[in-house]
């Protein structure tokens, strides 16, 4: 008798059952390919069902928004409202975003900056600055929504963030326009004495999702332009360009272009942080303000070719490259040499109480590609090669920072401001792609009249540079950052928040509560109805008295990806959205008596058109 037969057959039965149930027979296909044998069309074609390799976050300039594109397809995926109202998402209408906007209706979003860990994008947060109304914002990359905005005092037009420090310790906001402290009235005749170009060190409390100001620095009344944080060996330092060191107060086009040299401000933020800890600051408008002429140390000036725009730190953190927009040359400076000059007090005098380093002591080389005009901004590839946009000669020049040799150049259409390479601001750029952010599109697309969109041109940099795609974009990307798609981990639905007193997750728990002349509605939205009070004869009707202060707390109980509902009250100028699982509040005074239909604005289902009710306002008397 072979005893093992039944045992073996028993085990086999079990294993077969387990295999049928657990085995994963699906096959994975590898979509990534950067084969140089592909045609341009094949390189940018992302077939339906597949996704782009990179996200591009482009600033939306005076639209106050941020635009999200996929790369290499250059398809636009999303608009994130940040500093401006957006009725498509109800941004600036619901309570939370209305508060964030702080009474402003627009912004000028210039420089997006990813949060970083060890000098690499970590895909968690995106920061942005507002030149229009002096604010800074943070966007949560789990939901692609704006979470906090801070108004920065004493400053007027923070042009660019310092692309955050290596571990997101600070985001630096230098100001483009100098103003008196507290933005008080002062005659322009007293410009040099009374005006300041304040730089703010903004901190981010990740746990509470709150922006704050660590300290400010009352820099001279110059205009501060671009900036970049150091990396690796230079991680404690940051650099920014400044122009109008002439301190002119009118017709800047001429008057701020007189001096042959302007400066790069080189500062050690660790040292400034230490000074603040030691109390070496003055209190100004509730801010800790360092005055460099009084609290000495940590800030130096490096002479640079006139009216510089970009300053960019190489991925290895050893050099910073400045481009003078009116000078044809780029200058490569050495951090190491700068540190040595600081140590040896190798100064060429002072400006406004700040030591000036000797140009010759810090400069590594000047790079002057033939006939290249208007260098603005430099990005890097995986081999450390530099790509500089030439605004005036309308091209991108590839060159080697170590030798200064020009390697390649490609015309772009037209007038590129910034460019962005894949992960180009990190300690480890990816290479592959560069996108030129062009200010002028002119004849590129179908004509839409005298004014045209901006253009973003995709350049393959895996071999000889080649423009392979052009995508129109609304005004106007100043700068963009490109991140590997797999670094971003979005959520599908908002999780239930049982601690949120405004949230209702069950139809039966919906209610309308009156407290004096305050009316609180705790309602739900679901396919395809609103329920404000389940026990009411008409659960989708809200009835109030004229003059009542109304709060509508609405929870979308469709925990189903992309089933977003909208909520608008006709003729009341109100609209908001509730994303799947989200609770949102709308607050207003019912000052108009009458009958106002309310309805779902975000197409949600086959019976979306039936998703409505009434907001009734009984007249006084």
């Amino acid at each position, binding site marked *: 008798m072979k*005893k093992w037969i*039944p*045992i073996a*057959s*028993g085990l086999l*039965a*079990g294993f*077969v*059952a*387990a295999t*049928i*149930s*657990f085995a994963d027979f699906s096959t994975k296909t590898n979509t990534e390919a950067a084969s140089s044998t592909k045609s341009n069309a094949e390189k940018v074609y992302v077939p339906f069902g597949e996704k782009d390799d990179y996200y591009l976050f482009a600033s939306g300039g005076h639209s106050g928004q941020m635009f999200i594109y996929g790369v290499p397809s250059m398809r636009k995926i999303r608009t994130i409202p940040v500093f401006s109202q957006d009725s498509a998402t109800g941004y600036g209408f619901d309570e939370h975003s209305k508060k964030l906007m702080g009474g402003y209706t627009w912004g000028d979003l210039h420089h997006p900056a990813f949060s970083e860990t060890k000098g690499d994008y970590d895909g968690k947060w995106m920061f942005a600055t507002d030149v229009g109304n002096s604010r800074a914002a943070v966007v949560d990359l789990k939901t692609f929504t704006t979470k906090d905005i801070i108004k920065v005092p004493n400053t007027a037009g923070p042009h660019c963030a310092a692309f955050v420090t290596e571990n997101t310790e600070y985001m630096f906001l230098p100001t483009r326009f100098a103003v008196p402290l507290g933005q008080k009235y002062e005659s322009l005749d007293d410009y040099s004495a009374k005006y300041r170009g304040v730089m703010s060190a903004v901190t981010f409390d990740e746990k509470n999702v709150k922006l704050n100001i660590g300290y400010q620095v009352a820099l001279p009344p110059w205009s501060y332009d671009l900036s970049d944080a150091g990396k690796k060996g230079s991680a404690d330092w940051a650099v920014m360009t400044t122009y109008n060191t002439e301190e002119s107060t009118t017709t800047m086009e001429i008057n701020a272009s007189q001096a042959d040299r302007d400066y790069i401000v080189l500062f050690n933020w660790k040292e400034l942080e230490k000074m603040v800890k030691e109390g070496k600051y003055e209190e100004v408008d509730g801010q800790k303000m360092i005055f460099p002429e009084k609290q000495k140390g940590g800030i130096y000036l490096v002479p640079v070719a006139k009216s510089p725009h970009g300053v960019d730190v190489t991925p290895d953190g050893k050099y910073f490259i400045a481009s003078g927009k009116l000078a044809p040359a780029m200058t490569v400076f050495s951090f190491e040499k700068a540190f040595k000059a600081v140590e040896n007090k190798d100064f060429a005098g002072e400006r406004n109480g700040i030591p000036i380093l000797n140009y010759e002591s810090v400069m590594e080389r000047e790079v002057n590609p033939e006939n290249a005009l208007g260098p603005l901004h430099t990005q890097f590839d995986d081999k450390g090669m530099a790509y500089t946009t030439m605004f005036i000669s309308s091209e991108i020049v590839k060159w080697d920072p170590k030798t200064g040799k020009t390697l390649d150049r490609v015309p772009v259409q037209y007038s590129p401001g910034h460019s962005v390479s894949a992960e180009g601001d990190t300690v480890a750029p990816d290479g592959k792609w560069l996108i030129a952010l062009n200010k002028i599109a002119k004849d590129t697309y179908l004509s839409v009249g005298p004014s045209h969109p901006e253009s973003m041109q995709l350049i393959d940099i895996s071999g000889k540079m080649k423009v392979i795609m052009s995508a129109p974009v609304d005004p106007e990307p100043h700068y963009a950052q490109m991140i590997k798609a797999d670094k971003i981990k979005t959520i599908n639905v908002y999780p239930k928040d049982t601690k949120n007193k405004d949230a209702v997750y069950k139809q039966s728990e919906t209610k309308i509560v009156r407290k004096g002349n305050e009316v609180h509605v705790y309602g739900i939205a*679901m*396919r395809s109805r609103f329920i404000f009070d389940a026990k009411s004869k008409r659960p989708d009707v809200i009835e109030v008295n004229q003059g009542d202060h109304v709060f509508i707390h609405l929870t979308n*109980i*469709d*925990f*189903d990806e992309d089933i977003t509902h909208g909520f608008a009250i006709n003729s009341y100028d109100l609209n908001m959205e509730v994303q799947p699982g989200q609770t949102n509040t709308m607050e207003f005074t019912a000052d108009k008596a009458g009958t106002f239909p309310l309805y779902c604005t975000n197409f949600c289902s*086959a*019976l979306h058109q*039936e998703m409505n009710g009434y907001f009734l306002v009984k007249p006084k008397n």
Partner: protein
Amino acid sequence: MNDSKKGSKFSVTSSLLITLSAVLIVISMFFPWWKMVFYAPQYPEGLNIIVYPNKLKGEIDIINGLNHYIGMSNFSEKNFPELSYLIYIIGGLAGLTLLTAILRMKKVLYGLIGIIALVGVTGILDLHFALQRYGTNLSSKAPIKIDPFVPPIIGENTVANFITHSMLGTGIYFVIAAFILLLIPLWKDRVR
């Protein structure tokens, strides 16, 4: 060992197989027994109703949300009292199986096989009637009117834009394996 005893008792090997069977029954309780996957053009990834002996899993809320369009009542654990006691029945069967292994009496084994077969048939009928209840008892006020239907226990069905696939779960395969293990001694220790 005399002949008559040989006829009524089964071997140690068989006893071990039956013990293994009891173990498989216990294991089965931790796995889903049955599931239904709903596919629609908007849900290429599929929505699941996954039935464990003691709970429902899957995208039940979403399915309920969609089902209200055809006037189907909500799936919930509350509507399936079976889920509150089924686990004890299965546990009891596992206990009986273990007892059978210890007693090693053929008559007990016959009885056990009979009970399990009976419980199994009852379970299948129960599921069938539940599906019938849901598919035929549709609200007359539903926005989308469809003909009553009964989804199969195994197989495909089409309702509006949804195609449903009903299938057995891992747990039931363990039970089937357990049942096969119970049958083996009948053959192995047959009187020759």
